[in-house]
């Protein structure tokens, strides 16, 4: 049986939304993972003692990117339901831990490091375009927020939902299956698109509002200075603080 039953899939999906609810420094998402996988373990181990023993095994240390957890939940559900595989508990734990690290790297880069900033820039682009086209402020704002939420959540939800089926169908062959998604190419493509969009929006913000050349040059210089600080890993608060203090000094000198 290589297909996850719809009921179990819904249960795993719903519970996976609370993966981080018990996050702590000792086991990170471990307790959340045990909460999420519990319906699959109950089905695989009808005997109460075996179920609790399996649950205890899965409440140990675990940490991955939340959107990628579906793949691992699917794999573990499959291995636990397979009588032969379930006997080798150490192997299940090893696969789970290895997958958690590998998928965390992909998920962090894709969702946190690329898709989320891309969606923010996209929302800004939508707002500027609609506001520039004369659409009312509230309507343009609502459209931008909707674009942001949909552009992020549709792919995130697909990965979460489909990850469960893919993981379950692949079982311990999950590594080969994961490679088929070409994550790095997708991340590279999204970064290129985000980079283009960010540059276009920045240039538009400099030119379109008609600041006048003097002000546009000042804004461009501030942008360039902030960009240089960013390459040295200055945080938002540090950069903001530096410009506030610079403004104070400048004002003190001019006055």
């Amino acid at each position, binding site marked *: 049986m290589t297909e996850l039953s719809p009921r179990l899939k819904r249960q795993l999906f719903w519970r996976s*939304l*609370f993966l981080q*609810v*018990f*996050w*702590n*420094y*000792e086991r*990170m998402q471990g*307790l959340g993972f*045990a909460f999420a996988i519990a319906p699959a*373990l109950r089905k695989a181990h009808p005997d109460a003692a075996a*179920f*609790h023993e399996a*649950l*205890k095994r899965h*409440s140990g240390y675990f*940490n991955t990117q*939340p959107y990628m957890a579906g793949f691992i939940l699917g794999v573990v559900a499959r291995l636990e339901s397979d009588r032969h595989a379930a006997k080798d508990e150490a192997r299940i734990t090893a696969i789970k831990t290895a997958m958690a690290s590998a998928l965390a790297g992909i998920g*962090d880069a894709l969702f*946190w490091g690329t898709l*989320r*900033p891309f969606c*923010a820039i996209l*929302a*800004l682009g939508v*707002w500027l375009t609609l506001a520039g086209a004369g659409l009312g*402020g*509230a309507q343009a*704002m609502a459209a931008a*927020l909707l674009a*942001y*939420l949909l552009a992020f*959540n549709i792919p995130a939800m697909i990965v979460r939902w489909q990850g469960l089926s893919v993981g379950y169908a692949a079982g311990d062959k999950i590594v080969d299956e994961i490679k088929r998604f070409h994550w790095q190419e997708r991340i590279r493509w999204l970064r290129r698109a*985000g*980079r283009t969009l*960010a540059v276009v*929006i*920045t240039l538009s*913000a400099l030119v379109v509002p008609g600041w006048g050349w003097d002000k546009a040059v000042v*804004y461009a210089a*501030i942008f360039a200075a*902030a*960009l240089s600080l*960013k*390459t040295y890993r200055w*945080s*938002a*608060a540090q950069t*903001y*603080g530096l*410009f*506030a203090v610079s*403004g*104070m*000094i*400048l*004002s*003190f000198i001019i*006055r």
Partner: protein
Amino acid sequence: MSDLLSWNLAALPVLALLCAALELDTRHAAHLMVSRPLVVAPVLGWLLGDAWTGLRIGLALELLVMDELPVGGAIPINGGVAASGAMLLCTGPYGVEPAAAFPAGLALGAGFSRTEAAVRAAQTKLIRKVESALGAPGREHRAVGRALLGYAVMTALFLYICVGVLGPALGWLWTRLPGPVEDGVLLAYDIAPWLGFATAVEIFWRK
């Protein structure tokens, strides 16, 4: 006076709870991005009758903190709390100048991430209790509910106290600031979107 009283006793607690409920999305549940500054600030601005300031603050904060990633056990500046704090400060009856509310919001976001670290440390002590509840239908859902409720109440209290204290303090301070200091704060707020654009461009260039 009655405005202040109704704000502190009715409006602020309700708004703080609303922000806290949205804030659950950041770390604890779902991660649907409804707690991002870009969403929280305009929604609060719309509720409080100043959607434009909400959008201005939300966009600038979103761009500024977009490279703060929750990787591994790291707890970056909490953008949702920063946006909530800034909006409650500048659209409430204290009417804190947005230029002052914005950095105050950033400070609240940074301060709250320390509080989150403390919560995570406290949750470590509850491992056995949660473990015993797992697998028991009913008990495990109650454990999840308690964890979510506890975090939401803590967030709401944090916002309520900080906004309640900072609101009048910043309102009082703003009128007494020396000219150059006021100029510096206004300048930083004015150019915040440009600092944000720099973050956006840099994050896509990063290897």
